[in-house]
Structures are given as C-alpha cells and as structure tokens.
C-alpha cells in the first residue's frame, strides 16, 4: 500500500538563500510532484524605482536587488538608460566594467561551490573553497572600497579607476587562482563521494532546458551553448573571444546533472581569470566617466524619452531589464527586472522528479538559486503537522553521503 506525503521545504531553508517554498509530494523516499510557491517576500523594488526614486538613486536600489550579483542589476539599468538618453561611456570605463563583472563571477561561483560542498556534507571543502574565495573578496575591497555593494557603476562610466597599483594586485590574484584552480578541480571533480552524490542526480534534459528558457550555467550544463557575453554585444565584451562553456569540453559528453553544473562553474572561473587578464593587458587610457556633474546628468536623463532592453550575463545566467523613460517624469516610467533565478526555478520540477528526499538540498542548490534561507519544514502526516528543523534535514543529507562512502 502506498502512502503519499506532502512535505514543504521552505519558506526558509539553508540551501535556498531567499524565502521560497517548495511543496513536494513524496512516495516513500521518491519525489513525485513539485510545486514552487514564491510569494514569501516581495520587496516592491520595481515600484520604488517607478514611483519614488530618481534614476540615480535607482542605481543604488538596483544594486540591492541581490547581494551576490550586485554589479549585474545596476549594469543593466545603466545600459538601458544610456541607450535611451544617448550617453556614451568612455572606452576605459567599458573595460573596467568587464573586469568588475568577471571579478563578481569568480566570487559568486566559488561561493556556490562552497555551498554545494556543504549541502552534501563535505564541510572541509566548504571551508577550503571559501578560504580561496577570500582572495577575490580582498581584491574587491581594495579596488572598490567595499567587499559587497561596490557602488562602482554610473551612467556614462564607472566611479573608480583601476590604476597600475590595483591592476598589479588583480594580476597577482589571477595567478593565485590559476594554481588554486587545479587543486579545486581535483577536489570537486575527482572525488568519489562527490561523484556519487552528483552524477546522474537532478538531470535537466537539453530539450527541457530550452523549453523552460533556463539561463546561465544551468542551461549550459545541459548542453545549450548560450551565454549573453558570447551572444549579445554589451560593454567591451565583443573585444574578447568568449565562448559558452558546456561540460563536454572537459569530459567529452554532457549529462545535464548536478556534476555537470559543477564542471561548468569551475571552468567559468578559469574563463573569467583569462578575461580579466586580457582586459588588464589591453585597457585603453583616458577618462572613466562621460559626465561628472550629476545635475547635468539628471537633466539629460529627465529630458529623454524612450524604451530599451538591456541584458547581462550574471553569474547565474541572463539578467534582463526593461526600462521606459518619459519626458518630465523623474522616476523610471516603467521598469521590469528579471533575475536569472526567476526563470531557473521552473527547472526544479524536472530536476527533482524521481529523486530522493536527501537529494533535495543539492538539487535545489545546483541552479544556484538567489532566494534566502530555511530552518525548518513541516511534515503533514495524518493531518498532524510536525516541524523538522534544518539540522535534521542536513543530517539526512550527510547520512546519505556516509552511506555511499562505505
């Protein structure tokens, strides 16, 4: 006789960084149905941008949409408004934007790798990965004055230059990562336990990846050659020879499972290092900001009218903003933000179906969701609700790892 249970993962859960609720129907250990409920916390950011803030304030607001990809959202907003108002950023600024963007990718992918290791109970690897990640955080702090919200991008350029001294520091960081990369690749890709926990787990088929419009490493791990930096010209990226990384480059074949998502992200760290080094070598000299006077800048934006779509390859995938300005109306007349996770959570369903409860944390984390953290979930059995905390859930995951190691 079969018993169907429904369990809820979330709204707050350690493998999900923002409040979101996963309702899973379980048959024994197997997941048979998945429903995602996102209505836990809506901050009304678009509303503030459309009603309250002026466009310059909105840069800082956009920066706070997400703490991890705090460069991609303001970049999109700035790109869209530059297109509408006809502001031309100087060449040097375009290169600095590329460097900033890829520094962010390195730190975000390493952060994810650590979280992934933690989800399967490999905590020493979490600590090692995050120790390695500290290097790029230090560089971000030295270059921008801040580890997290960098406040670097501005309409018509960037706010801080990367001089020779800072460039030297970034170069040193790159060579450090070249070495660290080999060790990390060995730890993540050759470890038997990691392989057992991630190979053939949470598979997203090529067709599903296309159909569900997934973005970023999630879609590339399923073999779709899609990367906004490669496909769509923005910033100084057309100067670089960028290609979308798929797992077959390293392994010769693509499965589309969690392991492949690790492969893609690790290779992208290496790719970002190469991009940064190339950008430092070829950086043009000159100004970094087209218009220094904010009042003049504001007047120009306020007098502009039109609409534009901007896209950016964030660490998690394609980020897109739609902006409309209306003459004489100070805030943005229309603003739609779509972060990559918005579309990637659709792929949780095909990924989770047929797998076990203990696989939920690693599968959910494998798309690198940008949504906040759980501490408990409720089990409803015979109409009685029982709350199980994160420790128990995490322990289940570790137990599975230990079982496999025997």
């Amino acid at each position: 006789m079969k018993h169907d249970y429904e369990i809820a993962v979330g709204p707050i859960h350690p493998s999900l960084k923002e409040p979101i609720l996963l309702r899973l129907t379980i048959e024994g250990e197997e997941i048979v149905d998945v429903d995602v409920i996102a209505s836990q916390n809506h901050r009304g950011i678009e509303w503030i941008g459309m009603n309250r803030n002026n466009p310059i304030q909105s840069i800082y607001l956009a920066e706070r949409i997400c703490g991890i990809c705090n460069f991609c959202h303001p970049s999109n907003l700035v790109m869209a408004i530059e297109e509408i108002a006809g502001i031309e950023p100087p060449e040097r600024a375009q290169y600095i934007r590329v460097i900033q963007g890829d520094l962010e990718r390195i730190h975000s992918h390493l952060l994810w790798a650590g979280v992934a290791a933690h989800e399967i109970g490999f905590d020493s690897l979490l600590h090692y990965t995050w120790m390695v990640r500290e290097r790029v955080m230090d560089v971000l702090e030295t270059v921008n004055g801040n580890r997290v919200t960098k406040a670097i991008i501005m309409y018509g350029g960037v706010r801080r230059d990367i001089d020779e001294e800072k460039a030297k520091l970034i170069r040193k960081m790159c060579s450090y990562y070249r070495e660290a990369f080999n060790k990390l690749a060995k730890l993540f890709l050759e470890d038997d336990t990691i392989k057992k926990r991630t190979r053939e787990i949470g598979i997203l088929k090529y067709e599903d990846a296309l159909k569900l419009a997934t973005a970023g490493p999630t879609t590339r791990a399923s073999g779709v050659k899609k990367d906004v930096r490669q496909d769509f010209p923005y910033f100084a990226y057309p100067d670089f020879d960028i290609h979308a990384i798929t797992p077959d480059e390293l392994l010769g074949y693509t499965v589309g499972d969690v392991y492949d998502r690790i492969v893609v992200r690790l290779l992208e760290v290496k790719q970002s290092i190469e991009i940064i080094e190339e950008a430092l070598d070829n950086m043009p000299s000159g100004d970094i900001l087209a218009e220094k006077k904010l009042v003049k800048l504001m007047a120009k934006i306020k007098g502009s009218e039109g609409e534009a779509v901007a896209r950016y390859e964030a660490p998690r995938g394609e980020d897109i903003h739609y902006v409309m300005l209306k003459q004489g109306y100070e805030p943005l007349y229309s603003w739609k933000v779509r972060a990559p996770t918005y579309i990637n959570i659709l792929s949780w369903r095909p990924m989770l179906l047929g797998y076990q409860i203990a696989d939920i944390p690693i599968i959910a984390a494998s798309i690198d969701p940008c949504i906040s953290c759980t501490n408990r979930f409720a089990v409803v059995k015979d109409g009685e609700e029982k709350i199980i905390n994160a420790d128990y859930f995490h322990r289940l995951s570790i137990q599975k790892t230990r079982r496999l190691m025997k």
Partner: protein
Amino acid sequence: MNIDEARQKFEEAGYETWITERMAGVRNKVARKTLWIRIPKEKFREAMQFFKDMADQYPHFSIISCTDFGSNVELNYHFALGYGGRLEEFVITFKVSLPKNDLKIDSIADIFPAVIYSEREIREMMGIDVINIPDDRHMFLTKDFPSGVYPWRRDETGVKETNKLYERWKDEA
C-alpha cells in the same frame, strides 16, 4: 536567422515592426539590436504560433514587462533569438496594447511553457485577465493580498498604503 530576415517575415505577415540599436565593444564595435513588433490583441496567439514556427531555433523567452499609460496598458513579450553564434543574438519584443476597460489577453503557456510565471505575475501585478491560464494562483504576492489592488497600476487601483512612510517624511521635510 538574423534580425533583418526575422523583420521581413513579420512585415510580410502584415505587422508593424521597427529596430533599435546601440553600439558596444571598443576595438571590435558591434551593434546590439532589438526588433520591436506591434501585434493587435486579436491576432496575438496567431502571431506567437507564427513566431514559434518561423524561428530556426527554440525562441528564448525572457520576460513580460507591463506599462500603465492611463487609458491603456501595454504588454511587452521579450524573447531572444540567434543564440549560440558569436554576437548574433538579438532581442525580439512583441508589443500588445490593451484598453483599460478590457484587460484580457490569451495565455500562450501552451506554446511557450516558460511564460507561466510571468503570466501569473502580470495577472496579480497589473490585474490582467489571462484567458485559459493553466495556473491562476498568486505568484509573488501572498494569497491574502487584497483583491482589486494592483501594484504596477498608475490609477486608483495602485498601491497607496505602502507609501505612508515616504509621504510622512515628505511632509516633515
């Protein structure tokens, strides 16, 4: 398929189209282009099916954006085509205008399954009735969110309560 071919196909089918572009790159200057297509609301589903059939790869759906112009609401369905090559991708945006007194649009979730979250979003945020939507629950707003309040609207049905703090601050200043 490049942007001009796509534009030609839609022109031949009788739709109004235009292209906007912007230069990117420093040493290798390339324009990023957006193709805009205006679709009458009666022909919306037909045009979407036409789009899916004519495209040589699976169109990448991005998002639906939505603007309130007072007497009408404009929907933009943003897609991307031409990915996988080198700097060949372009954005393709379908514009549909709906009169305020008849905010109804057909669901296209059967043609492009990825639109479902976005359709649920315009339903709750702008109060648009999406006909035949497979899932009509709230997406981002809580299930007890008051009915008849639509955060993206610019008329009397928009959000006012949340502005309290700001309004008070403005009075004091």
